[in-house]
């Protein structure tokens, strides 16, 4: 049983980059700054536009008898429960929570109004990885220089758009059925319909046109995720002005596409589109591209991922108006200066991809029934993911994980938060250390990171009065990277020389997304540099880049006399 669960969860837990451009993170917590893709402007939205989803707004529907009957008993929680745990939303977060709940012996149900898998599996990291796999191969085959250096001869590489699109779609279906099967096999009840909280420990669910069902549970986890955020003034038609939802279907490969936002989503799509022959124009509100990344990594990434490719960019500008192509006219994008708000430029392109981040999908959840008001759509929670009501009190037995709470909009963060909640409801207190959650951007080569960026670390150091050390190693010195003829890359370690604590690790280079886990595990477990530097790495492997990184760090002698660090530090 356990092995099945393992196999099934392995894939969906792979990085969920698509939620990483959270607009909310920037202000809530400085540590999250690096995930914040874009603009402060994004915070201004009030009514969220839901581009796609199975969720309907319940407020607009007539309440059924059953609901009003149940509403009478809202004040008092039920005495016996249908389930130990109900999770609203079967994305990667809900799935992770459900699996862990079953392991802990909880009777668990999961409510899904759309398709199992959520954004990540259906409209996010999973299909995008399929496209990126194709783009990586195309890029390699098209690089005559690279091929020649390896002594290979390849005649002109080409692709079939529909074939590529099918690959992405097939991958999504496969992972979706894996996810569904793994939950079914473990005995998780999958309840189909849109979940709404009607009172403490009580949820109703149902499809449009069918009677609602009411279920009760000792604990409820909200895991409804997010949808692409589209700033006002931008008209999305799904054909020439698109969001990631549409782009992943790859219905067309435009000659020239403007990508609004140069965060993870934008960067990954620029990789896909340029490999397939498009030319790309980035539109970035901040003064530099890739604002969420460590500056040094960002600079190198720009030198490798932007400058040599068929990409140009406009920084420090907002796209105030984007009109889809029609009547023989191209897509028209009006740009204004981000600071002076004066009209700056007008672009005419074949298509525009809106990658300005993601907005929480929490409308119609019935939060008013438990006296909770969302903040810019996000469900307010404490560090244990417990939902906070309007009076600042905790709502008992109600938790919120993933994009819906906006703490860290990554699939695997949602899953980790879900597991943390299950730990708590099964009697073991647990606080998730968000600084140990890695993030990755699957460009070619990849970018990955965990912990603080250098500026964030220096700021913290100044406040708390400690010294910051920085160590760097290059992929150019790594045997395996050179064997692959992919020596372009950098790994950067930010640490405390006084005690050997790892503050952050940033990698740009071949398979960076896979390499980061040695660092993220070290942070999660509280392993110090003086200990991890003695760990052995197989030779020749890319992981030696990190080996060398740890070895090049200069930890002060005083720290070395201490024994191995005892307790993992939770933040």
């Amino acid at each position, binding site marked *: 049983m356990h092995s099945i669960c393992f196999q099934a969860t392995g894939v969906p837990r792979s990085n969920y980059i698509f939620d990483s451009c959270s607009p909310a993170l920037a202000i809530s917590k400085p540590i999250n700054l690096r995930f914040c893709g874009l603009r402060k402007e994004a915070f201004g939205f009030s009514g969220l536009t839901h581009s796609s989803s199975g969720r309907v707004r319940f407020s607009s529907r007539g309440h059924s008898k059953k609901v009003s009957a149940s509403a009478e008993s809202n004040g008092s929680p039920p005495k016996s429960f249908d389930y130990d745990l109900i999770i609203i939303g079967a994305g990667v977060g809900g799935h992770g929570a459900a699996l862990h709940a079953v392991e802990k012996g909880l009777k668990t149900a999961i409510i899904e109004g759309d398709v199992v898998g959520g954004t990540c599996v259906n409209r996010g990291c999973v299909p995008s990885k399929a496209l990126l796999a194709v783009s990586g191969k195309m890029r390699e085959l098209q690089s005559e220089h690279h091929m020649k250096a390896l002594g290979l001869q390849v005649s002109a590489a080409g692709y079939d758009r529909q074939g590529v699109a099918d690959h992405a779609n097939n991958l999504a279906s496969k992972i979706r059925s894996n996810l569904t099967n793994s939950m079914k096999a473990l005995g998780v009840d999958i309840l189909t319909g849109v979940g709404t909280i009607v009172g403490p420990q009580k949820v109703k669910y149902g499809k449009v046109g069918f009677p609602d069902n009411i279920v009760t549970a000792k604990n409820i986890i909200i895991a409804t995720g997010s949808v692409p955020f589209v700033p006002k003034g931008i008209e999305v038609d799904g054909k020439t002005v698109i969001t990631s939802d549409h782009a992943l279907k790859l219905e067309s490969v435009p000659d020239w596409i403007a990508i609004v936002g140069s965060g993870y989503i934008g960067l990954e799509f620029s990789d896909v589109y340029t490999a397939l022959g498009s*030319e790309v124009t980035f539109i970035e509100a901040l003064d530099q591209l890739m604002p969420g990344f460590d500056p040094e990594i960002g600079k190198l990434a720009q030198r490798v991922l932007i400058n040599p490719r068929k990409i*140009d960019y406009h920084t420090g500008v907002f796209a105030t108006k984007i009109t889809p192509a029609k009547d023989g006219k191209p897509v028209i994008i009006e740009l204004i200066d981000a600071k002076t708000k004066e009209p700056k430029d007008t672009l005419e392109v074949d298509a525009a991809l809106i990658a300005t981040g993601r907005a929480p999908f929490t409308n119609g959840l019935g939060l008013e029934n438990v006296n909770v008001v969302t903040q810019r759509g996000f469900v307010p929670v404490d560090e244990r993911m417990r939902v906070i009501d309007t009076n600042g009190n905790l709502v008992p037995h109600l938790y919120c994980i993933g994009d819906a709470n906006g703490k860290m909009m990554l699939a695997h963060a949602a899953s980790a938060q879900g597991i943390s909640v299950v730990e708590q409801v099964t009697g073991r207190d647990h606080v998730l250390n968000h600084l140990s959650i890695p993030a990755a951007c699957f460009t070619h080569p990849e970018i990955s990171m965990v912990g603080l960026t250098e500026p964030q670390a220096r700021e913290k150091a100044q406040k708390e009065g400690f010294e910051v050390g920085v160590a760097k190693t290059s992929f150019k010195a790594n045997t395996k990277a050179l064997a692959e003829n992919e020596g372009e890359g950098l790994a950067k370690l930010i640490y405390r020389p006084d005690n050997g604590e790892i503050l952050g690790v940033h990698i740009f280079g071949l398979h960076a997304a896979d390499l980061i886990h040695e660092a993220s595990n070290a942070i999660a477990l509280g392993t110090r540099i003086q200990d991890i530097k003695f760990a052995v790495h197989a030779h020749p492997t890319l992981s030696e880049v990190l080996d060398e990184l740890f070895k090049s760090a200069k930890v002060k002698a005083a720290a070395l006399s201490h024994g191995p660090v005892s307790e993992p530090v939770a933040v």
Partner: protein
Amino acid sequence: MANVLQTSFLPSTSSLRRRSISGSKGKSQSLQVKAKIREIFMPALSSTMTEGKIVSWMKSEGDKLSKGESVVVVESDKADMDVESFHEGFLAAIMVEEGGVAPVGSAIALLAETEDEIAEAKAKSQSSSNSTPQVVEEKPKQIEEAAPDVPAAAAAPSVPVAKAVTLGSAVHPASEGGKRIVASPYAKKLAKELKVDLGTVVGSGPLGRIVAKDVEAAAVAVPVAASPAKPDPVAPGIELGTVVPFTTMQGAVSRNMVESLSVPTFRVGYTITTNALDALYKKIKSKGVTMTALLAKATALALVQHPVVNSCCRDGNSFTYNSSINIAVAVAIDGGLITPVLQDADKVDIYTLSRKWKELVDKARAKQLQPHEYNTGTFTLSNLGMFGVDRFDAILPPGTGAIMAVGASQPSVVASMDGRIGMKNQMQVNVTADHRVIYGADLAAFLQTLAKIVEDPKDLTF
């Protein structure tokens, strides 16, 4: 003068009219006596034209114009054309100087009805020269206003109205802002690398956008500062066993050649007796006439009678009948190939054509050809006769309808109709054509005409 386009003077825009009325407010003029200052617009000389370059003004400010008189020569994406006036009046103000580029539909000059209004028009040209977008914006309005008038008012306005509609459809949305350059990201990058001024590049992408290949094509002609003239281009500095990447020009050729595979071509050959042509050549050689010019001239005269052979297929759905006959002639230059274009070869006399040819070849060698001097060909000639090649076939350059491969003229033993055997100079020509627009019978008829012209070349010298 078949190429003189019947477009040009459009009715003055409502804005101008309004302005002129308000200008004379207080004088209590009757409505009929309002000032008549008309704008001369950049005409759309072809369906693909989005902007035009003023080659030369044939009239100066203050000159009187009569209806139908040519005022300006405009260079479109295909050819230079005279633009003539639809109205009488005085050329009051030139708003786009020679060498300047204006988007289709924007005002390039003002025409005053009387001499007295010249000064007023000049003042307006200053105020409106920086409000080009306004003029363009108002164009649709003008069409709407004018259209209902047609049945009632009839006559004069109807022609310009029809023109206005076609102009409207060809206006590049990007040009609304005036002289903006729309180039794709890679085109911009390349232009920077290759030091090509995007302002001089004619875009061939969607809606006239400049794309990478346009920049590459322009770079071939523009002398790149970084490549000093090689003293001895003939010496083949080829190192055996090496792989040498294409130069930009060779890359462009390679792409064009691959692109040509998407066109269904076929070939028709013909043997032409050249004794008369050779004799003519001998006679006028001293006047600087070259064989290339003679062949181009003969071809152009034959094309006049077979416009379909001068056409091309741009979109797979239609014939594009080119308004001028521009003979491109393939020339081998250091490390590549370029096709300088003899524009309007059917109209220009043989001596001018020969001088023009010499000038083009010199420019090609110096890599100083301007885009319009090598990419405006409507029919291509490729002559390998000087090497003794007796026959070969050519690949059709994309964007054109036909190319003719010309072999050497050689003395041959020929049996004549009257049963005798004689010696005649003969050359073989072989035309490759796009069968979507040019059929076998078209080529056959064209070749027959060409043979007649070559065999009786008196028309070549006028």
